[in-house]
């Protein structure tokens, strides 16, 4: 599998160990892993101009950073793994700086999907979506994070998706192997 691993520039030690562990497991299983380190200081904020929908469909009009290149890699990967410190039950600023700009990979228009109003997909397939959160996370934040992955899946409609949270090094490898097995990314 061609797997895109999205990590944070501003990651604390547990984040770096988590991403290294995931990369190691995936590569030992024979997958091709491309690591991209996202930096919210370098990615420009989405300005909600809708240009990526209505002026240059499928491409953000801010072109002096890496967002379009990452969006292309995202849509062409078989699976995307996001490794993010859980901030208030959501993604960190580094990871979210790309996600905000990734709306170029969905369409304008509104349609009903699973009882809610969503935008249709731009591409036929969206990669398997794996959100790995880490940090000292409360139970309520954990519930928000896993619910967020469900909501994101309604917007992006990957074939499979999962969210998990790693609290410490002891459970790191076991938890990562578990979720990759559930998604049949590893045997």
């Amino acid at each position, binding site marked *: 599998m061609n797997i895109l691993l999205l990590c944070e520039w501003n990651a604390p030690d547990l984040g770096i160990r988590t991403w290294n562990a995931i990369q190691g497991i995936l590569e030992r299983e024979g997958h091709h892993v491309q690591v991209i380190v996202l930096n919210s200081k370098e990615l420009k904020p989405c300005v*909600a101009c*809708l240009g990526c929908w209505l002026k240059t*469909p499928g491409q953000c009009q801010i072109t002096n950073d890496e967002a379009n290149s990452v969006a292309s890699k995202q849509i062409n990967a078989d699976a995307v793994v996001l490794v993010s410190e859980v901030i208030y039950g959501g993604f960190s600023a580094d990871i979210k700086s790309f996600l905000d700009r990734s*709306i170029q990979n969905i369409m304008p228009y*509104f349609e009903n999907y699973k009882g809610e109003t969503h935008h249709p997909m731009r591409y036929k397939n969206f990669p398997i979506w794996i959100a790995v959160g880490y940090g000292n996370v*409360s139970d309520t*934040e954990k519930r928000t994070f896993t*619910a*967020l992955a469900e909501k*994101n899946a309604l917007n992006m409609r990957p074939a499979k998706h999962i969210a998990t949270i790693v609290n410490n090094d002891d459970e790191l490898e076991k938890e990562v192997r578990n979720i990759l097995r559930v998604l049949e990314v590893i045997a």
Partner: protein
Amino acid sequence: MKITAINGSPKAEGISSLIINKMGNLLDEQIETYQAVCLVRTEKHQEDIARILESDILLIVFPLFIDALPFPLIELLTRLESTVCHGAETPRVFTIVNGALDTAQTVLALNMIEHFARRARLPWRYGIGIGAGSLLYNAGEDWSKGLASDVHHALCDLVVAIKENRSGSNIYVSFKFPRILYKTIANISFLLEAKRNGVKNLRAQPYVNQEK
């Protein structure tokens, strides 16, 4: 009473700004407003963050981005959290999310602001999730009648809660406007706008097989 608003929108004059202005009118108070995207990029942001934390009320108003907070707002809130002086008087937190058509989609964003308040040990009050907030552009000056009246009433309740220092459960409000009509008008306006821009194919797939 010192009231400070954080505008989490990338647009200085968007819906979040309209809501903050309306809250200022309803409260009959001056609201000092900071735009998150500007604040996190200024060199004197620590000074501004200290001023924000001196407020009695912190009103966080933002649009929903991918089911959550726009990233500059996340960045600003983490800096606020790390600056809070425990033991000092801290602002009470209210929030308003201007979201997608379904108000249910604002639930997680409201939860995130509550998580922020708890992490920063700021007194959490409650939030309002507004569905199809972009309709406020069409609401005119007087929101108390017509399509924005439910939003108006929710904001009036928030004003009372601010003045009486009350907390409560989150409130979800929408416009008096048929959903099917909203979607139809939006879908047609996307096509018209694209046509004006000379776009022939809104369904373009520029990245197909680009990385193979």
